[in-house]
Structure formats: C-alpha cells, structure tokens
C-alpha cells in the first residue's frame, strides 16, 4: 500500500457548520454537510483497501470502499444504492453514528493521519439521493400472504419493517406515541437530526406499503397473544427500546424544576414546548440549567436547554473527566463552542429548593481512582468537599432502563433481571416465544441507532425464514 501513503497526508476535508454564535439560539441543523466537490475531494483520500478495516468497525458492515469509490467518481446515486444495501437509514446514521468509535476508528489512514470522514460521506450520498432521486422506483417482492407486527417505531422496528416489506410481507408497525421514530423523534433534537429527514424515511416506508398505527401501546390495548391468535399476525418483532429514565435517588429530586432528560427532550421535540403558546405544552422559562451526566442524552439536553429563549447559562456536571465523557467528541466540541460550561469530577448528593422549586444542587468533588472491571477509572468522593451550585433547573441524564410493559403482559417472554428481553437464538434474534423476535435497546440496553437497526435487520432475516417455513 505504499502508493497510498502520500495521500494520507492530505488533511480531512472539513464539513462546513454554522458558527456557534449563529446556531446557539435556534434549532436549525448545526452541521451543513459536504458539497459534491467536497465529497469527491474527501472520497479521493480513500486508498481502497483490499481488506478494509473500516467495514469491520461498522455494526451493519456498510460496503465502505465501494460506495466511496462511486463518490470519488461522482456517481452519487450509485453510492447511495450501495450504502442502502446494508443500511436503510444512511441520512440518519451519517449524522448520529459515533463514527470515531466505529468505522472511522478502524480506518487505515487514521493511523498516520486523519481517518476518512466516512460518516460525512454517508450523510452526503443519502442527502443527495433524497434531493435528486425520482421516487417511482420502489420494488417489492410479490406478496407472501404473511402478516408481521412490529412493536415500536424506533430505528430497530423501522429497519426490520423496511426489509420485511421489501420481501413481500404485509407489515404493520404499532407505536405507543402519536409520532413514529422512537428516540429519533422524541430524543435526538432537530439541530442534530432535522425531523424532515426522519419524515422522508417514514414516507419511504409507507410507500413500501407499511402501515404505521400510532397511539397503540402493545401490552395494554393488545397482548402478543391477541396479535398472533386473533389478528392473524404470523410473527412479531419487539423493538420497544430503553425508555425508562433513571433518577439519582437523592433527596429533593421531586422538586419542581427537576426533569428527566426524557421529559425535557420530549416536551421540546415531541410536544414543541419551545413554541408555547402556539403549541399547548409548556416548558418553564428557566434561566440556569444544571445537566447531570455525560452521554449523548446529557449533551442533547444541555444544548437544547441553551437554545430556549430565556436561558442564560447551562452547566453540565459529570463525575469523571473530559476524557471519559461517553458522548461523541463532535457533540462535546459543539457544546463547548456554544458556551455550555463543563464541570468535571462532581457528583450530586442533594437537590435543595425554595418554595417548592429547585434553587441549588449540592455536589461532592470526586477524584479518579483505579480502573474497574470495565477499564474505566472509578470516581471516588473527596471528603468534606460538598458545595452548592446554584441553578433553577436540573436535568437528569443518567441513561435509562427498559420499559416493562410488554414483558409484564406476556408471561412466557424471558427477560433478564434488568428486564431486557433474552434471545433464545441470537443469530436470528428469536426470543423464548416461538414467532416472537426482538432487537435494539430492549435487548441490549441503551446502545446506538445503528446497532438497533442492525438488530432489526438481523431479526427481519430470522422472521422471513420463520414465516416462510410455517
């Protein structure tokens, strides 16, 4: 690969983004994406490895060198077609995948220089296709006469539904909320993933003949048994996600002004509270926010809080240091540029209030100790270091557990002690119940969009085989 080496020195093509000052008070997308010329320039940096390591870093094994070659040539629609063979929602993953930990982490030219911007290229081809393709050409296999129910319209469910519909099955998605998309709709904010992109993907699924039934909580309005025995579904896919918010378990958490990140983001993203009173759901006009946590959810909550009109200051309180933040580096850098204050090595011990409202949060200082079993350095409290941080709102973003609704209503569905659905056959994502498959966060716990989609696709293959043999 000697020939490739000089190219490694070419710097990565930066993708334009809106300036921090301009973007921090609105909800429009931060990153603007490549122009065709930029995309071709960046694609030309790829040395077309014979054994591409990048592909092994991608949970769904996108044919990265192949699509990038087409980008370099300028055949963007062909590039998009190649990506879509393994990734149904590239406009979304190109935006939200933690690429630096996945495909790009393994890119060979990243060893000596900067890795290829695979995510940005993926986003580019998907956006290009959305804007340029004529939409007539959707091919589905002839009808198989089989009916499949998908529970939950998050990335896992949507990915499973797309494949199953293409293979000729009748697919109905049941979604608890009034909008499909799961975390893509209610969690990840507009400035990172514009809703119109999600809408376009949903439109595509509808054109495949998929029916989406919103306002339908499976386990309440219908059990799994009823779907199979009464409504004639031949198989079911469960992709209900990990939506149960964790709280801190410290005094004062029920004071007004304390939100779970889910509540805060749902009010904004799903219910449009930032447009109150044009929309009926309110959000209180706080001036300062303290966000507890360091993952994507915490950063999304912090940056969303910053964009509300009355906000003056947003702090993010994290137990470890910057190096350990689980959020994507790009998001951290964006948040820092926008003026979010990062406070490290702090652990909240109590929320204090005044007249029923939050007034300050007591935090203990931490230091990093020895690495634990997971290899991460464990934060340890420093004695006599509790001090108060003033804030009139607190957002708790500590991650989430799985929702017990379905498992509760179906006794023969095996779950582990955390409530995750257990797979009887992980190769096809089959659960302990015949004909019932599962995937995404409900199986793995909170993970990523692309891994949920990968699980959905794997389950779709399992379901296809299952229904064709039964």
């Amino acid at each position, binding site marked *: 690969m000697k020939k490739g080496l000089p190219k490694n020195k070419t710097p990565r093509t930066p993708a334009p983004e809106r300036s921090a000052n301009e973007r921090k008070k609105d909800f429009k997308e931060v990153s603007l994406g490549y122009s065709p010329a930029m995309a071709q320039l960046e694609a030309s940096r790829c040395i077309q490895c014979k054994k591409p390591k990048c592909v092994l870093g991608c949970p769904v094994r996108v044919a990265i060198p192949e699509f990038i070659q087409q980008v370099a040539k300028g055949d963007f629609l062909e590039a998009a077609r190649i990506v879509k063979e393994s990734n149904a929602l590239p406009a979304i993953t190109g935006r939200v995948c933690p690429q630096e930990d996945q495909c790009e982490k393994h890119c060979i030219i990243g060893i000596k220089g900067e890795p290829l911007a695979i995510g940005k290229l993926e986003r580019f081809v998907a956006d290009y296709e959305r804007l340029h393709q004529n939409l007539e050409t959707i091919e589905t296999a002839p009808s198989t006469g089989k009916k499949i129910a998908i529970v939950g319209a998050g990335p896992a469910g949507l990915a499973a539904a797309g494949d199953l519909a293409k293979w000729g099955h009748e697919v109905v998605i049941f979604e*608890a909320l*009034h909008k499909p998309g799961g975390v893509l709709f209610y969690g990840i904010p507009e400035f990172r993933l514009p809703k119109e992109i999600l809408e376009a993907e949903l439109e595509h699924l509808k054109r495949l003949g998929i029916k989406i039934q919103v306002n339908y909580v499976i386990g309440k309005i219908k059990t799994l048994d009823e779907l199979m025995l009464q409504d004639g579904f031949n198989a079911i896919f469960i992709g209900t996600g990990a939506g149960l918010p964790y709280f801190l378990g410290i005094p004062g958490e029920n004071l*007004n002004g304390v939100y779970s990140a889910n509540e805060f983001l749902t009010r904004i993203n799903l219910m449009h509270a930032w447009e109150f009173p044009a929309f009926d759901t*309110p959000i209180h006009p706080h001036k300062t926010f303290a966000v507890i946590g360091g993952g994507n959810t915490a950063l999304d909550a912090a940056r969303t809080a910053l964009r509300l009109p009355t906000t003056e200051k947003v702090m993010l309180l994290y137990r470890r240091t910057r190096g350990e933040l689980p959020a994507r580096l790009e998001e951290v850098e964006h948040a820092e540029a926008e003026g979010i204050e990062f406070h490290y090595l702090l652990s909240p011990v109590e929320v204090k209030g005044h007249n029923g409202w939050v007034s300050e949060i007591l935090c203990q200082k931490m230091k990093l100790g020895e690495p634990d079993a997971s290899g991460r350095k464990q934060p340890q409290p420093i004695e006599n270091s509790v001090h108060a941080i003033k804030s009139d709102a607190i957002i708790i973003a500590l991650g989430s557990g799985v929702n017990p609704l379905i498992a509760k209503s179906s006794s023969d569905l095996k779950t582990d002690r955390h409530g995750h659905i257990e797979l009887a056959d992980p190769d096809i994502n089959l659960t302990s119940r015949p004909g019932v498959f599962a995937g995404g966060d409900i199986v793995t716990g909170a993970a990523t969009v692309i891994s949920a989609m990968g699980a959905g696709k794997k389950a779709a293959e399992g379901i296809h085989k299952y229904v064709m043999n039964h």
Partner: protein
Amino acid sequence: MFTILDKNNLAPQVFRYLLDAPDIAKKALPGQFIIIRLNETGERIPITISSADPIDGTLTVYVQDVGKTSLEMSQMKIGDKILDIVGPLGNPSLIDLFGTVVLIGGGFGIAAIAPIARALTQAGNKTIAILGAKTQDRVILEQEMLNACTHVHIATDDGSYGTQGLVTDILRKVIETKKPVDRVIAIGPMVMMKAVADITRPFKIPTLVSMNPIMIDGTGMCGACRVTVNGEMKFACVDGPEFDGHAVDFEGLLNRLKTYIPEETEAKKKYLEETQGSCQIANKLKVVG
C-alpha cells in the same frame, strides 16, 4: 381520528363525552385512563375512562373545564374528531370480594369512581358511596351511583343538596356506625384524598387514592408523573394511578401540580381572548371560572 359521538353539559364546567374508540373499549377496565391530544398543536392530557362499551365500541368520559385543553374540548361538537387517543393506560383497580367498601368521589372523581363501584358491587361487596360537590347542580352521576351502589350519601359545601359539609364528615360517621369498613377508595381533589387518608389511618382501613400528576407519554418514558410512595419513586402512569393513601406523599405531588400554573393561566387567557365574542360559552366560562 376519534369521533365525538355525543356530548352533554352535565354540570357547570363538566361535560360528558361519548367517544368512538372500539379497540380501547374492548380492553378498558375500571380504574384505567386514556390520554387525549385534540389536534396537531395540542397537549396530551390524561382522562379517566368512566365506562366502556365493548359492543358499541365506545368510551364515556367526563371532563371538567380547568384550562386550555379541557375548554377547547368543551367547544367541540358532536361529530368532531379528536386527533389522538391512546389507552387503556394505567393499572386497573383491584376488584375482589372485600366486604364493605366505601367509595368517595369528589368533582370529576365521581366519574372515575363509578366504574369501580359497579364492578365491586357485582363482585358481591357492600358498596357505600359518598359523593361530594360544591353545590347541588355539580353533583354528577347520582342516578348511576344509586344503581351501582348499596348506599349513596351526598355532601354539598353549601347544603343545597344532601348533607351540608364535607365527604370526610360522612366518612367518619360511616366508619363509626357501619363497622367494619374493609376498604376505602377515594378519587377527587388532592386535598380531599389526603383528608380521607388521614381519617382512615388510625383505623388501619386499607385506603386507595388515585393520583393525578402531570403526564406526557403515559407509558413510563418521561418520569413527569413521578410520585413518592413509602419513600420510593413511582410513576403514576405505569405503577398507578391507584396507590396506598397512607403511603403517598401528597404534599410533594401538590407541589408538582403547581409547576405550570403561570403557563396554563396564560394559555387559557389567550384561548379565551381568541375565542371571545364568537363563542358565548367561553364568555360564560370566564365569568364562572
């Protein structure tokens, strides 16, 4: 879309709606609720299912006008469509043979307690209902409760109907004279439920109250509906809405219910201003409310 099949004004600011929702009607059990979103800009509000007819595929709900959404709903006409209804949500009330059960309903709580009363009577319990309202014209569902219960007592604040006083005055007498009372269920304003729990506590009568915190999704996803029960955090939408009245933290919930008062008042005012003149009912409500 869910059609309003019928609508009646039962008492000042209280409307009964008959909703076309066949899938929910097949599944609804006493004690469960739905979440309604009227239109694209609407908020999601929880409303108790007062009765469900699985054959006609209908739900009956009673909604009290307190703010923007309930007011807007009261302006809708028979035949109009509600954009979203999701349910049945929450755990059904436990129906069993307990012996003597006292059911206390205040305000729209009467609508919530009616299906529970019917089911408990059918299960063989002696059911004593105590209904409370400000004035005679605000007593709703009296006939239904007479049909459903062994005894019905009514208390009005001004004495215009039944006994003058509070439901808790009657409860105290019932406990003292009709021993034993095996179970008490109270649904209504928070202060009423708290007062009921305070009375039954020394007698150690199992007492259930129905919590009505602010909700968004109703599926356990947002945590807005959290209430403290026995020092533990519970979500009313999936763990409730009924909880042990002797264990819930009423003060904490009363405080949380105040969160959005300024915003709700603003929304209601704006709505009334916009609809004023063109809409007589809104005018009337403004005078009453």
